[in-house]
């Protein structure tokens, strides 16, 4: 019996607008609503709407034998609600079929798991509430941003009550073993890990439209045959970005036809079935242990976190950002908290990656900036403006709780903080030469 388990990642960041260094202190809009709207509508038209309709019809046509799961980020759903509410209705419709499971993750698609455990738990809680509110489901299976996974993350997630966690089926944790079984993360009691079969997943997600590929063009019967080849497998986990359908692989590659026929072909083998991650976790037991003392992810050939934390620009800006938690919370200002969290979205740091930059590969495709340096400059300018904004808010707070004479003094101080002067003052304070080295693993594994 082979259980095929499909999960699609749906995410959109709140991209930043180009924030010039001379704008520091002017508190202009940080996020590029116009561009974000444009991209969301484009991807909705090319991918989200046609793919979701297709899957909905397929579930009905196959009488509930086709099952899928999604991880929808909070930042995606916010933008969908704002720019294309039809999308929320489509996913809601899908939820009601009973054949669609929604997974849990951080609301902001952040790297909080690596930097701040408390923040991580709060964002997972926010996302869980959103799933309940929008789709009436309480997620039982967790997937972390970009499938970033460590033993410690599995342990925290287990404590939070999840029955399963999703990770990349990389040799780094599997060595010679097959990803087509459940495993037990080291140091956990009962949580089960579902591992991505990256060969079969990437056949669809990356290689499908590649004319150089020896299996090109990939047909549904061929793929069904690959899936069914080893009947001793428990589960074949096909995990990918939802944009695979229509955006990364254009409609002209035939990707929608493939999605249309593949479920029928898989089910034409009598021993095959489609299950959601929860159902897989209920049905099977782990066959062994996986040990991930250091983070693994589904990104790049390295399958590590170097795409987000590989250089000093990334490490220092992440460190600066996460150090703000207490301060931002002490303001008790929902706007500041929301800005801080939107800045945590991993994409902002992915854009700063210089690893493969000169080779012009996949990183460039997803990068709205001309270069990683531009994205870092934008983030730093925003962080510096945000610092001035917080200082003003702090002064307002203290001013309101002070006596009249003191408040007056403070107002004077506030007036003296003209944007230009503030820029001067804060640049020197906020941008020290020394880069605080923050070892991801040391935060988590201490």
């Amino acid at each position, binding site marked *: 019996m082979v259980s095929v388990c499909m999960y699609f990642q749906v995410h959109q960041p709140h991209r930043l607008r180009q924030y*010039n260094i001379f704008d520091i202190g002017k508190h202009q809009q940080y996020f590029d609503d116009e561009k974000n709207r444009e991209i969301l509508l484009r991807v909705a038209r090319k991918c989200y709407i046609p793919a979701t309709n297709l899957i909905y019809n397929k579930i009905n046509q196959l009488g509930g034998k086709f099952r899928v799961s999604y991880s929808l980020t909070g930042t995606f759903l916010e933008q969908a609600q704002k720019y294309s509410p039809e999308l929320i209705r489509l996913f809601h419709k899908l939820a009601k079929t009973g054949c669609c499971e929604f997974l849990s993750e951080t609301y902001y698609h952040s790297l909080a798991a690596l930097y701040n455990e408390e923040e991580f738990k709060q964002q997972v809680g926010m996302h869980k509430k959103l799933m309940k509110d929008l789709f009436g489901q309480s997620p039982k299976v967790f997937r972390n941003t970009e499938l970033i996974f460590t033993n410690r993350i599995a342990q925290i997630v287990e404590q939070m009550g999840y029955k399963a966690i999703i990770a990349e089926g990389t040799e780094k944790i599997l060595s010679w073993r097959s990803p087509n079984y459940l495993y037990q993360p080291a140091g956990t009691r009962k949580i089960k890990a579902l591992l991505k079969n990256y060969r079969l997943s990437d056949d669809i997600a990356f290689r499908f439209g590649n004319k150089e590929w020896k299996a090109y063009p990939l047909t549904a019967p061929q793929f069904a045959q690959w899936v069914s080849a080893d009947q001793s497998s428990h589960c074949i986990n096909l995990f990918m970005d939802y944009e695979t359908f229509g955006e990364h692989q254009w409609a002209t590659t035939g990707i929608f036809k493939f999605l249309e026929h593949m479920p029928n072909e898989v089910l034409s083998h009598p021993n095959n079935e489609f299950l959601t991650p929860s159902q897989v976790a209920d049905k099977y037991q782990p066959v062994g242990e996986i040990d991930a003392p250091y983070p693994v992810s589904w990104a790049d050939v390295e399958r590590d976190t170097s795409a987000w934390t590989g250089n000093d*620009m990334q490490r220092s800006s992440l460190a600066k950002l996460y150090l703000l938690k207490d301060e931002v919370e002490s303001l008790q200002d929902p706007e500041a908290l929301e800005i801080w969290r939107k800045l945590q979205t991993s994409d902002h740091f992915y854009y700063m990656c210089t690893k493969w*930059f000169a080779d012009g590969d996949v990183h460039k495709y997803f990068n709205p900036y001309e*270069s990683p340096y531009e994205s870092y*400059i934008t983030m730093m300018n925003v962080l510096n403006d945000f610092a001035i904004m917080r200082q003003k808010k702090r002064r307002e707070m203290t001013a309101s709780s002070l006596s009249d004479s003191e408040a007056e003094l403070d107002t004077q101080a506030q007036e003296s903080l003209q944007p230009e002067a503030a*820029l001067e003052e804060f640049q020197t304070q906020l941008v020290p*030469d020394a880069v605080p080295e923050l070892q991801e693993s040391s935060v988590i594994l201490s």
Partner: protein
Amino acid sequence: MFGWEFPPLSSGGLGTACEGLTTGLTNLGHDVILVLPRPLPKEINGKLTVKDAQRYATIDLKRLKTIAIDSPLQPYINTREYAAWLEHHKQILHIKLDKQGELYGRDLFAEVQRFALLAQRAAIAEDFDVIHCHDWMTYPAGVLAKQASGKPLVVHVHATEFDRSGNNGANQQVYDTERWGMENADRVITVSYFTKRQVMEHYGIPDEKITVVHNAVEFTNPTGDRFAINKSDKVVLFLGRVTLQKGPDYFIKAAKRVLEHQKNVKFIIAGTGDMLSRLIEEAASLGIGDKVLFAGFLGKEDVDKAFRMADVFVMPSVSEPFGITPLEAMRNKTPVIISRQSGVSEVIQHCLKVDFWDVEQLAGKILSVLRYAPLHKEMSDKGLQEVHQFSWNDPARKCVDVYSQLQPMRVLA
């Protein structure tokens, strides 16, 4: 190949490109005959004859043969500079000139013609398959050689008259020679897409006749450590000819904007040119005279020192066919900001790019590099890696591709 300076006298420019390409071609197993003007000795004792002026020296190496023809032609010489040279030498060569008539062309164009005839005569005695010449002063030689031999002609455009004149006051005679050379060539090679567009727009050469071959850069001598200098100020460097083409005025305007926000910055302009006095005045009138230092022309060693001393190098060129100096800066681990109106911006990634006219963006990026230490570090490290990936074998290979597509002219019986 009708080329320049072998070995090259200064880094960058035509001489370096010719040397690189020649080396690349010989590395790939091709034989090169390089015909080039040879500068006259500095001291002439006044006994030069017409025959002397027509002589040439031949050096035969393994795959490379050079034929050097005595001529005062040198890269980028203009009519005024040539006239000055001639005037100077007329004094020295006074007697002989009276007796023999003119040893050298009476103006730059006549000298180009004279060189062309001699070069063609020397070259035609050799055995070759294709003619390749570099920039307009060698085009007449190339065309003559083509007419005499029936072999295909490739002209290589490193710069056009529009770059040199900064888009105003282009010399008509130079333009005509360039256009005539390109029209008579079987293929035109440009050093960038930027230059290709100019060749199409200003010279009316069709798209399919032009191939882009980006320059490379190879460094043999090791990079020294960063120049240890006791400085409390940050240093922003401009290095190049101080002419309209190189955009030094935008550099000054950006300096003004930067200094409004940060005081401890010095702006250094290294190089000379016809805009120098205007710039000095402008810096003074903007009230930043004490912050802008004019270093004059720097020798090779001082150039490296200047790069190492600088916290950021800026090339705000208005029109730059390729532009090799940013690569020199990167090699010295100095972050670079370059204008998009340059060929080099087509081939390097680990830098910041701006439109030359966008002073606000330029100033913002200068400030960012000065203030954000991780940005400075990453650009320095990755920039250094990037410049070492270049090899002259790559452009040489592309030239060979071009050669192999060309057929010799059928000589009519």
